[in-house]
């Protein structure tokens, strides 16, 4: 069964702390994504990566950075957490085989971060 695993389901951090959110996928997917989800705002793309060591900004990258040293792992980093980063964070992966794939996004179960 395909799987995207996020390291922590629930985290509580203090303002100013550095926060790491880890995501691992076992499907050999090229693409990996970080979204945040807030009530009434849907899912918003923070960063995505289409290959190892490659990254591109999404719609709301401010206050975040990412790291992709290995194909299966994509980390989201909050250098100095702030209260407005309290949210549900969702990692996803996808692949595309020309002419065959739907580009389906596979999501993890999410990490609910609270910043006090």
């Amino acid at each position: 069964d395909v799987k995207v695993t996020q390291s922590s389901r629930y985290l509580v951090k203090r303002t100013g702390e550095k926060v790491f959110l880890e995501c691992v996928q076992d499907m050999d997917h090229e693409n990996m994504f970080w979204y945040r989800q807030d009530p009434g705002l849907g899912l918003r793309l923070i960063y995505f990566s289409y290959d190892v060591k490659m990254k591109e900004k999404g719609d709301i990258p401010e206050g975040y950075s990412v790291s992709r040293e290995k194909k299966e792992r994509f980390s989201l980093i909050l250098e100095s957490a702030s209260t407005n980063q309290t949210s549900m964070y969702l990692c996803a992966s996808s692949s595309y085989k020309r002419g065959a794939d739907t580009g389906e996004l596979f999501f993890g179960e999410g990490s609910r971060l609270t910043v006090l």
Partner: protein
Amino acid sequence: LAKTTQPISMDSYEGQEVNITCSHNNIATNDYITWYQQFPSQGPRFIIQGYKTKVTNEVASLFIPADRKSSTLSLPRVSLSDTAVYYCLVGPRGYSSASKIIFGSGTRLSIRP
């Protein structure tokens, strides 16, 4: 990027057929229409994808008219477990296309006994 409009919420009863319509007036020629389902405290899950006419799988059907400016997700004989948020997405397929896909606020479907 094609923006989608769908109802904020819908209610129905067990055993009924539910149809959720999505508007996407500025859909592009190479855009596909994809629907995801999300349960509370879980990530979204792919349900169905189509380009035109009708697509059916074991979960749902997707109806797309000739002008492709709207689409309708049809859930046959819903049960309580179909209570979820349903997202309509429009975008191209391709190795980096997922970055161009926009999730709106979705439709919150509530099924009652």
